[in-house]
């Protein structure tokens, strides 16, 4: 079960600068912390986040162990054409989450 919250406008004017905000449930376990049995808890982080607008990449980032649990990522983009903005998080232990929103550009 993946849990994601997205804040994106439903409509935008062509050429408008819009903000897209994303929040995802993830432990972002650093791989440096000892667990209750004294052993190191294996690293479990999101490694990469990519956003595409109608298939074209508009934003991507590599995530590191220093990023907090449940990472909040926000970025700006220019509204070009109506369509689907898709978000994809991938990482350790085969983690994969995908979510999308549609935005009407008028």
């Amino acid at each position, binding site marked *: *079960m993946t*849990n*994601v*919250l*997205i*804040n994106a406008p439903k409509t935008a004017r062509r050429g408008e600068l819009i903000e897209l*905000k994303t*929040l*995802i*449930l993830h432990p*972002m376990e650093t791989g440096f912390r000892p667990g209750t049995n004294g052993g190191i808890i294996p690293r479990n982080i999101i490694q990469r986040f990519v956003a595409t607008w109608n298939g074209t990449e508009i934003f991507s980032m590599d995530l590191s162990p220093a990023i*907090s*649990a*449940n990472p*909040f990522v926000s970025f700006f983009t220019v509204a070009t054409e109506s369509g689907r903005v898709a978000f994809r998080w991938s990482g350790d232990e085969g983690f994969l989450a995908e979510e999308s929103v549609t935005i009407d550009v008028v």
Partner: protein
Amino acid sequence: MTWSDRPGRRPALVLLALVFGASLAAAQVGADTRRSGYQDMGPALQKMQDDDTANPAMLFVQLGEQLWSKPAGAAGKACADCHSVADMKGVAVRYPAIAKGADRPLDLDGRISLCRTANQQAEPFAPESRDLLSLTAFVAHQSRGLPIAPPDDPRLRPFRDHGAEIYRRRQGQLNLSCAICHDDNAGKKLAGVTIPQAHPTGYPIYRLEWQALGSLKRRLRNCLVGIRAEPYGYGSLDYVALEIFLADRARGMLWEAPGVRP
């Protein structure tokens, strides 16, 4: 003179006197100086709490909503089979409470745990596990914006008094009471942190330091450890007694769960 001594007086005058009298009484009691921990946070954190897509606790509310309709246990029943979400409105603000026929108070997560074992006949949730906290956050969220309204149940009184006694008792290696910080020094700084008045308005909260959702009990444990006192065991009634006292002290304040705290 009582109002009934003067039947037939002009109603407008009586009304005026009533209104005047009431506002005078309010002025005598003094303005409510209670502050939620929310008001002691900076604008950035307040905005984080207010924005449902930036408040990380909402991820857990979402998780709780999924669990709400998932059947569990030998009864094969989901919470949703016995309760409507609308019925959960106003529940969180009157907990802890004592159920009819029971003799000990339960806080909200205690009540949900009881439904889990007694009504779903499922394995008990581990104390403060993610699933339990998420369900609690989901139920608590339904009461957002309502005033805290502890029940006027005389059976709660001895527990509240016990909570008040703990609150004022000096304890731990630092020999401090809750009241020394949260009544006498609230609003002042402890290291870089503003000492809040300790009103349980936002629980369960997403605490940035924890990077997780946590219960009021966890918060209380933090304060106990902070004064180098031995925290009570997970299921201890001492926590529930403190929770009853704190809820009573915050009566009428607005419920903001799930909150964000530094």
